[in-house]
């Protein structure tokens, strides 16, 4: 499989702080890749660089051969990268359906003038967007909550709604930032299965930031470990799990070589 995303020597500095330090990183198409590391390791910063929130200070970033470093978020979505947020960022006072319909924004074309004239194309587009959004709500199991305000949904449903909204942008690469944060073991297991389904059924490539090692080890084909902004280790879950450097980063010196790393 070719690599859908290639990062070379990507660096991000905030003043004197180097949040991401010369990271080389690739994501093979159709895979589930995880990014792990202790708190403050630079995972989310790296994520935000890919998603267009930050401009990298150095290095290059290409998506399907197109350089994306420094592009705006909306341009990156249009190219086919969608994301969710670590702390859920839904449009709280919009309904679940409206939330997903906003996700269709990048794939719609109607200008305000067409909206004023209610042209046939505009009406067809609106109708199609609503139909597709309802379909996605069905897909994530929120059919009954379409007209509910996002903020009134239970936590787990909000997480799923955020994923539905991201899929609505027709991405090829889906970035999930700690999707199981705050979930109980049953919910976590269900979401893990769901992520695998996304990859298998929708042919998505998934990049995951995750703290829950059972999720990471269960579904990722490859794991990359960041520490202090730099890449510490990379490999299959099995390899990474036994890497003394990783164990040391998580548990401190002395723990290395004695046992496997616990949930981070």
């Amino acid at each position, binding site marked *: 499989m070719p690599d859908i995303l290639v990062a070379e020597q990507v660096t991000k500095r905030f003043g004197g702080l180097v949040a991401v330090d010369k990271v080389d990183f690739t994501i093979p198409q159709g895979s589930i890749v995880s990014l792990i590391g202790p708190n403050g390791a630079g995972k989310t910063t790296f994520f935000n660089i890919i*998603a*267009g*929130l930050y401009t990298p200070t150095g290095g290059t970033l290409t998506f399907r051969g197109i350089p994306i470093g420094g592009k*705006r*978020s*909306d341009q990156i*979505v*249009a190219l086919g990268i*969608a*994301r969710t*947020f670590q702390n859920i*960022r*839904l*449009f*709280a*006072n*919009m309904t679940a359906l*409206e939330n997903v*319909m*906003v*996700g269709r*924004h*990048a*794939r*719609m074309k*109607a*200008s*305000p003038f067409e*909206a*004023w004239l*209610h042209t046939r194309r*505009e009406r067809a*587009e*609106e109708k199609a*967007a609503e139909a597709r959004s309802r379909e996605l709500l069905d897909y994530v199991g929120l059919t009954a909550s379409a007209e509910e*305000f996002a*903020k*009134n949904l239970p936590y787990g449903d909000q997480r799923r709604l955020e994923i539905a*909204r991201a899929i*609505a*942008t027709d991405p090829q690469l889906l970035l999930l930032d700690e999707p199981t944060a705050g979930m109980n073991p049953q919910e976590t297991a269900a979401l893990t299965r769901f992520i695998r389904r996304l990859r298998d059924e929708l042919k998505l490539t998934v990049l995951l930031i995750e703290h829950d090692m059972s999720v990471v080890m269960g579904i990722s084909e490859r794991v990359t470990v960041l520490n202090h902004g730099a890449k510490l280790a990379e490999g299959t879950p099995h390899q990474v799990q036994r890497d003394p450097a990783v164990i040391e980063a998580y548990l401190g010196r002395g723990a290395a070589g004695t046992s496997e790393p616990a949930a981070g």
Partner: protein
Amino acid sequence: MKREGRERRLAIYLAALIFVIAFPFIDKTLGLGLLGKTIPVALFIILALGLNVVVGFAGLLDLGYAAFFAIGAYTVGFLTSQASKLPYHELDFWPAMIVAALVAGIFGVILGAPTLRLRGDYLAIVTLGFGEIVPLVIRNTPDVTYGILGISPIGTPQFALGDAKFRFGIDSLPWYYLIIAIAALSIFLTTRLRDARIGRAWMAMREDEVAAASMGVNLVTTKLFAFSLGASFSGFAGAIWAGYLQQISPEQFDFSVSVFVLCMIILGGIGNIWGVVLGGIILGSFDRVLAEKISGGVHGLGDLLGINALSTFDVVQFKFAILGIALVVLMNVRPEGLFPSRRRKAELHAGDDSIVEEHQAHETLYDKGRT
């Protein structure tokens, strides 16, 4: 049930439309003499609808909205007045009105562009500054604008119907219909946008800019469009105001106008188009008509009861104080405004239900403990 609702809504619209069209005749027959006073009220409605796009839909707090009103009015002044210092002037009113809306829209972009990165309080301060600068510039460039003297007279619209030529003059009737038509058009245009792709993008941006951008909303164009559309509504209103009043001067466009229009949309129900229209009617007519009427009523009451303080109490003089108190009360009792959108209501009453539930749960527990 949906159909019934739609029919009922249509009936209400139709009744309102008939009333609005028939109002001049009702006014004449009953000898109310209110027609002239409805014109500023209707203008306020157009202003409120425009500001609602910026503040209500897109969530950009604009405190300098009157500046665009001034820009629209002065554009028409420059283009149509005999007194204008432009080399090419005495243009017909209609093209001048369109140009005024366009110029105001362009100024909307000019104000919007440098403030794109600002939000909330910071944006409010910059727009406030802009709202102060525009009248100041007008005041201090008498070579172009005649400063505080203002520009007068201003060209009036005219149109030919067959052989007959109509000229808008002192008679309020044609102005009334013109303004009503533009207000209706404004309602139509903003409603269509609210329910379209751009309306959802505005809403999403108001809720969470970062998330909106991550869903493909181009923040730059979406914000600028809101700014310039709102501004061009204001420019339209300014153009008509200038033509109707025949005299424009900087003090007509000071900060209090911006605040007054903002109060209308807050009182009516920010984000809700019909709420905003009603807010405009309520505050506009309070300002222009009701305060006087109430004053008369209070005087009558004072005379009747022999209370001297009431007989001499001038409501008009205290109208802003009354308005202020009314707003404070309203914001405490009904922060979402009189006629809120479902969304805004949900936003401002978040957790009310859960508090009730918690309270009930607590009660049940307590009751159980007793039995």
